[in-house]
């Protein structure tokens, strides 16, 4: 009962952030001299107008779902995982390496790829967890460092072992058997980038929400996140939970890496930290750190990303406007905490409340009467 009220409130706040963000975007469009309604029309049309576009929206959203889920999960347990980008890279590297090395039948190869990216990401997440549990190194610092370690590892490993035929800066294309894209799905969405990753993502959303809501593991992890001292006084092993939480968060981001590098794309480029790793923070924020919220927020961001090209093609508005809208939404999602905190005060200045205040026989006249 209580949680439902809470969810409803979170949903309202997130919707509020989205609306304010779009409003600010509209203002920006007006200032740059274009028509906001027309722009938004093309923005959403670009992401939804046909089955292929919808497929692309979902495909773009897939790594964002994983990254958002990763940040949200860690955050629920009191940890701030900024290492999504590095964990994605490692997950993607594991997936690509296996895809380029082995030529097994597709079902086996994909299973191994998924597991490898999961464990690769888990390792990349667990290391900062161990550092935190053992030496009290703050996870924000260590996950950022792990991002760069992943970045340079890819920079070295890809050209050295998996160099593409033409370019030094990218890997060979993975064979069809190693891709999460499958023919029936691609043709169902008339040739879009959509791949098995979206199903994997939904499954993970379900699993994570079950872990958080129904298991003793989730109960422990959240207890540690909310109040570390009380958890340890109650006999919960705080350090073990920190490592475990970071490992799970890393595993999720690692899977996201697989869906990006061997699903959405077909090879790995060096010298790029995947921006989805950081966008995951925004996804988690807008999704109020709930698994289902992250799913919805990621699909919404996927829509904006997919539609922005179409918008700029059909109008004079540059695609950066769409990025600006996303940024503004993030801004409002972050400040929605402030809005929530001041909700009572806002209500106080609502017309109804003001009327009550000045009305004869209201609050003022009852005070000070009796001595």
């Amino acid at each position: 009962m209580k949680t439902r009220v809470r969810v409803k409130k979170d949903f309202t706040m997130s919707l509020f952030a989205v609306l304010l963000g779009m409003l600010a975007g509209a203002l920006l469009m007006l200032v740059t001299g274009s028509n906001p309604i027309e722009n938004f029309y093309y923005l959403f049309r670009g992401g939804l107008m046909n089955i292929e576009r919808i497929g692309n929206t979902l495909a773009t959203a897939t790594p964002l779902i994983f990254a958002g889920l990763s940040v949200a999960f860690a955050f629920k347990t009191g940890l701030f995982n900024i290492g999504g980008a590095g964990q994605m890279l490692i997950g993607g590297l594991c997936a690509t390496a296996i895809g380029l090395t082995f030529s097994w039948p597709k079902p086996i190869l994909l299973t191994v790829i998924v597991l490898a990216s999961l464990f690769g990401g888990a390792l990349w997440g667990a290391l900062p967890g161990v550092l935190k549990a053992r030496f009290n190194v703050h996870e924000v610092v260590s996950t950022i460092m792990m991002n760069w370690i992943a970045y340079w590892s890819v920079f070295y490993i890809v050209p050295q072992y998996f160099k593409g035929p033409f370019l030094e800066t990218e890997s060979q294309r993975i064979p069809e058997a190693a891709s999460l894209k499958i023919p029936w799905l691609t043709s169902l969405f008339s040739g879009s980038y959509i791949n098995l990753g979206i199903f994997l993502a939904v499954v993970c959303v379900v699993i994570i929400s079950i872990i958080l809501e129904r298991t003793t593991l989730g109960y422990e992890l959240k207890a540690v996140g909310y109040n570390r001292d009380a958890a340890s006084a109650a006999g919960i092993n705080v350090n073990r939970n920190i490592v475990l939480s970071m490992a799970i968060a890393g595993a999720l981001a690692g899977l996201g890496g697989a869906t990006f590098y061997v699903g959405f794309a077909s090879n790995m480029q060096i010298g790029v930290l995947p921006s989805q790793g950081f966008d995951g923070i925004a996804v988690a924020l807008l999704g109020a750190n709930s698994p289902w919220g992250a799913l919805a927020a990621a699909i919404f961001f996927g829509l904006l990303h997919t539609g922005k090209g179409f918008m700029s093609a059909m109008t004079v508005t540059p695609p950066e406007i769409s990025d600006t809208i996303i940024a503004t939404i993030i801004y409002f999602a972050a400040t929605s905490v402030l809005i929530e905190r001041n909700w009572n005060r806002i209500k106080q200045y609502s017309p109804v409340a003001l009327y009550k205040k000045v009305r004869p026989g209201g609050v003022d006249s009852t005070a000070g009467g009796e001595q």
Partner: protein
Amino acid sequence: MNNIVEMRDIRKEFPGVVACDDITFQVKKGEIHALLGENGAGKSTLMNILFGLYQPDQGDIYLRGEKANIANPNIANDLGIGMVHQHFKLVHNFTVTENIILGLEPTRHFMINKKTASARIAELSKRYSLNVNPDSIISDVSVGMQQRVEILKMLYRDAEILIFDEPTAVLTPQEVRELMKIMRGLIDEGKTIILITHKLREIMAIASRCTVIRRGSVVGTVNVADTTEEKLAEMMVGRTVLFDVEKGEGKPGKEMLQIEKLTVEGTGGGHGLKDFSLTVRCGEILGLAGVDGNGQSELVEAIIGLRRANDGRVLIGGQNVTALSVRDRIQIGMAHIPEDRHKHGLILDYTVQENLILKNYFTEPFSRKGILDWNYIYGHAERVIRDFDIRAGEGAHATARSLSGGNQQKAIVGREIDGNPDLLVAVQPTRGLDVGAIEYIHKRLVEQRDQGKAVLLISLELDEILDLSDRIAVIFNGELVGIVNVDDADENMIGLMMAGGKKEVSA
């Protein structure tokens, strides 16, 4: 008018609560006026308004008959109002003089002129017989002395109206008597004192008038000479209060908790424990008395398993648990009511039902194979809520944060006692609670003892220790001063022991 302070129709609202509901409060010049009320009654809010920390939503303050606008504590200082806070505001590595002049350092050629300040402090100290050495470093002096430094701070600023916020909470009985003498001396010199307290005995001993506040409103102002402790308590709580805990003869059985020559490091220069030995038997309440910060926290943490013992052993039910984890110790039969319920007792963002399973969520029937059984957990919570009279708006689904302090504490007590422990370590179990909740929790502790459980009660409230314990141990400086039977003990003797005076071990 001889009212030096008059607060008229003061109203202060915080989101959801009216902290002060049209309070009118008058203090005469030269009196000690007690402000009595339960926690959360609004007495601190009222005084914070007088000291300029809060602005009233409504109402006026008159000082010496003139309307005053106290926008911040600096203005309060200028108007001659001083306040000794419950938690002293001192810089520990500064000298007494440096602390006192902080904020209004006398300077000459851009250099602090400590000499004049020091001389004036020495003179003030002598005049009010405070016995403070201006050149001592704060970290070297006792808590009682630190309090006197705070008093000197007010006097140095020529304060005439002195507000004391729960000044005796940190003192031994002897130091309390000393403080009372000082307060009388201040009155003789023409100062006015407002004393915030919930200790009736102190009011009877020193105050001339007393204003009682309940739930933000004034219940009344009485002359202390015309009233009794019982009457004051009734005004404060709104009903008659039982003072004595009903408690029969104890039947101590076998040893449940044995602490043998335990040595533990202190936190940040704290005392730690040195060679500490203590035994608590089944069917008895052993009260551990001592001034705050003499090793109690370290002892508790070592017993429950949060702190490593450097030397010595802890045994629960005869089993050596020194190297065991917190969880292992809980499963052997240890329960713990922590001192800080927000920090160690509850997960405030969890609901009541979630908090009630904090120590056994992983056992059947609360969960099976790692899956929580919410139906069972809800039923369990409903039962504990009923048994322990926990009042929460939304029952089992209310977040712990939304409960009042008393009900939060009842939830913790409920959880710990419901687990049917053999050993209950209760640390300050009634801190900050109202009289009704205190009564209730005391009854439950005695009930545990009567059921043959071992109870270790650690409290800073000497009255609580004397009321509940069968035996009283006293800790000072991390060492055991002695153990006495409650029938042989009196306040004076325990007070001396709390200050480190050795007593032959007689029990």
